[in-house]
């Protein structure tokens, strides 16, 4: 399942990434495989989304969230 499919309040564990280049940036920001992510909220217009990961809040666009494969 992809992170972009979660609704606010839902959690999952990062398994892998489908885009290598994007994964470099995401990992530097603390989105590592094994890390738990929780979708906090959507922006007023539904995109981007704010997630809680590695002890802080990160926001990213839905298409970026869709490269993160999670275990729900």
């Amino acid at each position, binding site marked *: 399942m992809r992170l972009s499919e979660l609704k606010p309040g839902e959690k999952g564990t990062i398994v892998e990434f489908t885009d*290598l*280049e*994007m*994964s*470099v*940036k*995401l*990992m*530097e*920001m*603390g989105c*590592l*495989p094994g890390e738990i992510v929780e979708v*906090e*909220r959507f*922006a*007023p*217009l*539904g*995109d*981007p989304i*704010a997630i*809680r990961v*590695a*002890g*802080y*809040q*990160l*926001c*990213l*666009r839905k298409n*970026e969230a869709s490269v993160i494969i999670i275990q729900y």
Partner: protein
Amino acid sequence: MAKHIKIALVGNPNTGKSTLFNLLTGLNQKIGNFPGITVDKKIGYCTLADSRQAEVVDLPGTYSLYPKSKDERIVFQVLADPKNPSHPDVVVLVADATNLRRNLLVYTQVADLGLPVILALNMTDMAKKEGIDVDVNKLSERLGIQVVAISARSNFGLAALKDALSNATAIATQVHGADMNVLAPGAIDQVKHLLKIDNDYLALQILHQHEFLDVYTVEEHAGIEQIKASAGFESSRIQTEETISRYRYLGTVLTGVVKDTGAERKFIFSDKLDAVLTNKFWGFLIFIAILFFVFNSIFSWSSYPMDLIESAFVTLTELGHKYLPNGILTNLLLDGVVAGLGGVVIFIPQIAILFAFISILEDSGYMARVTFMMDKIMRKFGLSGKSVVPMIGSLACAVPSIMSARNIESWKDRIITIMVAPLVSCSARLPVYTLLISLVVPEKMVWGFINLQGLTLMGMYLISIVAAVFVAFIMKFLIKAKEKSYFIMELPVYRMPRWTNVLYTMYEKSKTFVFEAGKVIIAISIILWVLASYGPPSRFKAIDDKYAAIEAQKDSTQISTLERDRSAEKLENSYAGILGHVIEPAIKPLGFDWKIGIALITSFAAREAFVGTMATIYSVDSDEEVATIRNKMRSARNSETGLPVFTFATAFSLMLFYAFAMQCMSTVAIVYRETKSWKWPVIQLVYMTVMAYIASLIAYQLLK
């Protein structure tokens, strides 16, 4: 050890790095440029415990040494190149104690480069409150470096940090972290051999991004490329492996060092605020309300200090005319220099207030939410949520904002942001607007609390923002994208803005304005005064002869009005007047006369010159009674029709012209520097001027 040491501050964004910088250096700082690039280099000086002088450089905030934007690249360039003039003797790594693991990623990279490092754990008081306890001694022992707990916000631990800096050794003491050689063993060894360096990680970094280091020769760069090719060096894959192994290492280091007893608590307040501030309905409404409050405040709070400054300069000019000997020099000093100076100083209250708000909004974390809320809309128009900050920054000045667009990773988003940023009304237009609005819009209150003039001002800003978005939308289809755009950004928790930082920003921006823009404005004022006071000698002589002849026939009571007519005629025949007359046919359909024409010409150097030009022209033009520019402009009459020059139609048309036209040499220069070609600044200059002309034409023809 050297008497003078260089310190670099490195760390993630939002860690209080700049607050620490302000604390360390006080007002003893300056903004410079890194050689060859336009990233602002903030340097300050401080005295250490052992009375050595230290030069402190505040490097841009970054999450890793692999830059995501142009701005962040400077961190790698300064740290990896020993010949860089800012290459530090010791790095102070500022880390947010409330989120240590992510903050230490860049520490491990800096440490692996072999530079002496001191770790400054910032916000330790905040961390404690949130139930995060960091064992500083254990951490220091495990990393092999000095670790100092500080709180830049409450001014705690600064002395300890200065002590640590004076104890810093010239040789790095940190223990080895994760093994970097395994990531690309053959290639790393070959680079070490080629460049005669002995640091594995430096060699690895060079493999990744040697093209940004200009210390190597063309042959060396080619050699590195060859090594990469023959080893099959996959940059992205190796970077992910590096990040994973670093986080694994940090996991071991931090076990037993950080005790977390309910860190979730720190989000409760931010979450509650976010539920309202980024709410579907309230989010945008609050944003608009905040914008309105900002503009209303700029108008109402600045009026008192501005009146004060205005009357101070009037008094100064009066006293000057009274006590200084009459002559050309006195006139040049009072009507050229002092008038120009007055036109500069009068902006200070508005600029200071605007920057105070921008700095409060950024510092509190609200600006990040605005970016978050606006991204989807902005993307529709070919921009990114990250364009919001440069656009809002352009409310102050397009020059630093165009530079700040470097934070936008995608080339297309960045170019479009740069192209439309100067359309957003900057602070240099503010005096033009305020002057013209105060001339034609009555000072009335609507519903008892909304200032009608403030409302008009906000309208001008809205028009400029709509225009910027509209142009961006068109450019979205005209410009081809080079790569994907990203929007991966931290949303910092809400914090009280640090008031000292706000004050520093106000002081720094006002100072920059007075010294940078001020030079241009005063120079233009003097040139103008000369142009307005002198003309072709034959024409001036003809006027003198004509009035001498009339004077001889009239009695003394009429001489004073004659004198006024004579100087008016002289102005019209001066070089400035002639220039104004030349362009008058082109600007007449917009409702402008030749005097406004002169202001338009000088404003192509800088918009700020408008008010100064008006001041100069009208003080040359009017009778001896010294009055404010506003009153002089209000009483200005068209010499043919006898009607006021500044009607609602003319003023509005003029405001639109200033809103859209590219009248700023500094912006043209910065766009050239940032895009590395004349193509973009030329396109920008042309489209903006055409747009300004058409908008003014339509407005004047409809309203007159």
